[in-house]
C-alpha cells in the first residue's frame, strides 16, 4: 500500500531534531540540517509551538505542474519523485508549493523532495509523525 507522511501530533514535539538528522543522514548521506526534506521549526521562539513542514503528498502536485523540464514525476500514492538529471535549478517548485515543503539545496542546485520513506517517523521519540496508508 502506498504511504504518505503526516505530522498530526506536533503538539508533543520535543524539538530534538532527530527527524531532520536522520532524513539528511539516511537520504542525503549528510549530517547537516540543510539537507533534510522535513523541517521542524518554532512559530516564534522556544516557548512557542513546533511545526513540521512536510510534503503532504498532493495527488495533483503544484510543484510538478510548474516544473519546466519534467524533472518531477508523480509518485504512486501522491507527491512527486525527482529526476535530478532533468532539473535545471529554476526553483519554481519551491515557489509553487503551497505548504513550503520544497527545500532547495544550494549545494547541488536541486530541490530536496520528500519521498515519504518514513525514516523520520521511525526515529521520532515522541510519535509526532505518522506514515499513513492511502
Amino acid at each position: 500500500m502506498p504511504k504518505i507522511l503526516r505530522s498530526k501530533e506536533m503538539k508533543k514535539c520535543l524539538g530534538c531534531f532527530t527527524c531532520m538528522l536522520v532524513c539528511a543522514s539516511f537520504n542525503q548521506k549528510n549530517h547537516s540540517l540543510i539537507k533534510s526534506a522535513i523541517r521542524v521549526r518554532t512559530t516564534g521562539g522556544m516557548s512557542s509551538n513546533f511545526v513540521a513542514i512536510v510534503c503532504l503528498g498532493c495527488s495533483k502536485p503544484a510543484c510538478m505542474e510548474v516544473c519546466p523540464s519534467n524533472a518531477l514525476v508523480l509518485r504512486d500514492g501522491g507527491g512527486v519523485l525527482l529526476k535530478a538529471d532533468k532539473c535545471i535549478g529554476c526553483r519554481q517548485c519551491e515557489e509553487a508549493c503551497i505548504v513550503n515543503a520544497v527545500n532547495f539545496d544550494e549545494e547541488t542546485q536541486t530541490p530536496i523532495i520528500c519521498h515519504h520513506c518514513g525514516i523520520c517517523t521511525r526515529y521520532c521519540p515522541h510519535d509526532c509523525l505518522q506514515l499513513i496508508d492511502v
Partner: protein
Amino acid sequence: MLNEKFIRVLYIDLETEKIRIEQREDLLKYLGGVGVASKLLLENIKSDCKPMDAEQPIVFAIGAGTYVFPVLTKTVAMFVSPLTGELGESYAGARMGMTMLMAGYDALVITGKAKKHSYLSISTNNVTVKDARAIWGLNVSEVGQYIREKERHAGHADGKRSIVYIGPSGENGVSFACATVDTYRHFGRMGLGVCMGSKNLKAISIYGNRSIPILNHKKYIKLYQELYKKCTATEYMAKYHDAGTPENIMPLNKSGGLPTRNMRSGSFEEAGRICGESFAQKNLVRKMSCTGCPVGCIHIGMYRREFDKGHEYEAISVSYDYELIFALGTFLGVANTDAIISLIHEVEELGLDAMSTGVCLGWATEALEKGYITEAETLVKLRFGKAEEYRKAIEYLATGTNSFYQALGKGSRHASSIYGGEDFAMHVAGNEMAGYHTGYGSLIGAAVGARHSHLDNGGYSFDQSMEEFDEDKLVDMIFAEECERCMTNSLIMCLFARKIYDRQTILDALDSIGFELTNEELTEIGRRVYKTKLQIKKALGFQQKGVKLPKRFFETPSMNGMLDEAVAKSMIRKYAAKSDLLLAENSDES
C-alpha cells in the same frame, strides 16, 4: 572539526572587531569540548589581571561528536570566574552545539571589550559585532525576541540558529549571573553572564548552514541506530523523561541528604508537596529536548499568576529541574510548586544562577534571623517559606539595590566575610553548594572538583554506592572519575547518558567519524585535560589544599551520617597530593 584533521578556532576581538581563524592540528590531542577549551583558556588567560578585565578570554567549544550522535549535545564555556576568582567552567545544551557545528567552528575565543553595548552575530560566512543599545537592560525573554527578528537568515532560520544572552544581572555585575541559551537552557554557574556583561556583550547569535557530508556512511549509520535504540528503548534514560530530575526530591528527603532551610536539616517535612510527582501533576505542560537528544528531559512547568483584580491572569512558564527545586524550594523552606515556579521565573528573567541565588538567600535569611544583618540591609523581612519576600529579594539582588545586595551579589563567601555568619554560608571554595548533602563524596567532590560542582566527579554517587566508607578508596574514585569526565566532556556527552557511552561505545562512535583512538588514549586524554585545568587553577592562584569548608557541613548530618572535619581535611590533603603529582608529570605538552 568533524571530518577534518584539525580543530577550527574562531578568535574574536570585541574591541577591534577583528577576527582570525586558526586550524589547530595541535589541539586534536585534546579531542574537543572541555579539552580544547581548557588548552585555549590556558593559552589566553592573563594571570596578572582580574577576572573581569577586558583582556580575559571567554572560550566556547563543542565536542568531537557533537550533535551527530544522540545525547552528545553540549557546549562548554570556560572563563575566569568572577565568583570564585579562578577556573570557570559551565555547560549548556539547547541548540548551540548544533549551530556551531553547522557554522563550522569547533571553538570561539572572545577577548577584549566592545566599545559600546553590542551583540555578536556569527554565521557560516560572516562574523559581526552589532549594535545592542536598544536591548541592553532588557530581561532575558525580551532579548531573545528582538534578536530572533534581527537575525533572520535566508528567509527564516529553520531551527539553524542559537542565541546565548544575558539579563540585567550580567550587566549589573552580579558574580553569579548566568547566560541563557535558547530560552530553556543555561550556562548557569560561576558567572559567565557577568563576564559577557563586562565585555559589553549582551548576546551571541549563531547561525549555521554548512553541508557536512558523512565520512563513512555505513559505519556511522550503524552506530547511530544502535545508540538511538539504547537511548530510547532501554530504561537508562526513562526517568529523565518521565518526571525528570525532580524525581530526586523524595529519595534524598527520605535518606536525609536534602539540604533544607540553609542546610539546618537534611530533610524537608513538606518534600511531598514539591516532589517530582507533585510538579508533574500540578504544573507540567510540556517536555522538550536539546537538539540531538531523543530523551526530552526538559520539563516545562506552568502556573496561572493573578496579576491584578478582575480575574486578570497570565501564564508563567519555566523549565524546572531538581537543583532549582532544591535551591529555591527546600533550601528556602518554600513548600509550594507555584511559588517555586514564580521564583524560578524571577531568576530566569533577570539572568541569575538559580542555585547560587537560592543558597545566598538562605544565608541572608539566617543572618537576618540571628541579627548579623537587619531589615535595613535586606529591605524585606526574609523568612524561610515566605516566597513573596524572596521574589522581591531576587530583584534587589539582580539590580544591586543597596550595598548589602551588591555584596550578596558577589556570592555568599564574600557577603559573609563582611557581615559575618561564615559558618553557615553554604559555599564550597566560593561556589554555592549543590542539592546534595550525601556524605564525604559530595562534599570533597565539590571541594576538589575543577569547577566545585557535584558534576565534576559525581561524588554524591559514590556516597550511595560505596558499601563501607574508605577514605583512600573514595579519594581515588573521585580523582579517577574527575579525569574520566574530562574525557567525556570533550565529546561532549550529556552526563545523563554516562551509562550508555561506555568506553567501547565511545571508541566505536569516534571511529565511525574518523577519530581512531585506543582505550589507553582515552585515559590519557582525560588526564591531559585535567592537568591543563589544574594548570589554569594554579595560574589563577587557587590552592586545593587551602579549601576551608563552612562549619555547618559538619554540624548537620548527611545522608551517611555526621561528617568529621578532620576526615574532610585529610581527604582534601590526599587528593591535593594526587593533583600535584599529575601537575608535575612530564608529558607531551607543547
